[in-house]
């Protein structure tokens, strides 16, 4: 069963890796991705993530199950934080465990690409000068997600 967590708390990368690593003797490779708030040199100070409680968990569960089937994973994990996060703070964790590396690597890329435009999260940026704005959806992200269709 995919491990799906939506939380305002930080996550522990070591613990998450240990869970995937210990799923079964058949695990040969883990692929982990961590997205964090990137300082862009434009005065950005923090991001606030809003989501649609209930739908978020449902979509992430479906996404995880799709990845398990498609890439023959032993399991996967998706953790997404909500609320306000400063520069350098983790936003999202995706992890895939498979018998072989190719499947694990592909599944993690699939999960993060699909999650960006397919799960009900919205980002707002706060700047040092007090400005604040919703982040626009990027066509490149739509293309990356569609490349897995």
């Amino acid at each position: 069963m995919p491990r799906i967590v939506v939380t305002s708390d930080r996550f522990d990368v070591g613990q998450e890796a240990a869970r995937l690593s210990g799923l079964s003797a058949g695990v040969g490779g883990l692929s982990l991705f961590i997205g964090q708030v990137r300082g862009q040199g434009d005065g950005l100070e923090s991001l606030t993530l809003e989501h649609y409680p209930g739908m978020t968990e449902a979509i992430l569960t479906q996404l995880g199950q799709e990845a398990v089937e498609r890439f023959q994973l032993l399991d996967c994990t998706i953790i997404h934080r909500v609320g306000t996060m400063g520069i350098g703070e983790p936003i999202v964790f995706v992890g895939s465990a498979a018998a072989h590396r190719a499947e694990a690597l592909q599944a993690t890329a699939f999960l993060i690409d699909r999650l960006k435009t397919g799960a009900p999260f919205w980002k707002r940026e706060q700047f040092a000068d007090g400005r604040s704005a919703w982040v626009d959806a990027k066509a490149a992200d739509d293309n990356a997600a569609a490349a897995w269709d």
Partner: protein
Amino acid sequence: MTLEVTVLYFASLREQVGREQDKVVLPAGATVSVCALLDILSQNDPELKAIFERMPRLRVAINQALATFDGVVKAGDEIAFFPPMTGG
């Protein structure tokens, strides 16, 4: 049985609308699409109409699953409108 549906707004749409949700009563006996629901909302509140028109990439979910604008809305459903998602 009530013919009411719950309409939710998220992110920039919620901010523009100025509230998190509306309750809408569906016309009795009719099959109502998401498009028809948008018309009802727009008739009830001309400001909403203007907001929807300024948001060409509006997305919709019916009962927490992504849907299309010809999707059918039934009494008791939870319909959510929001801008394109920007997670990760």
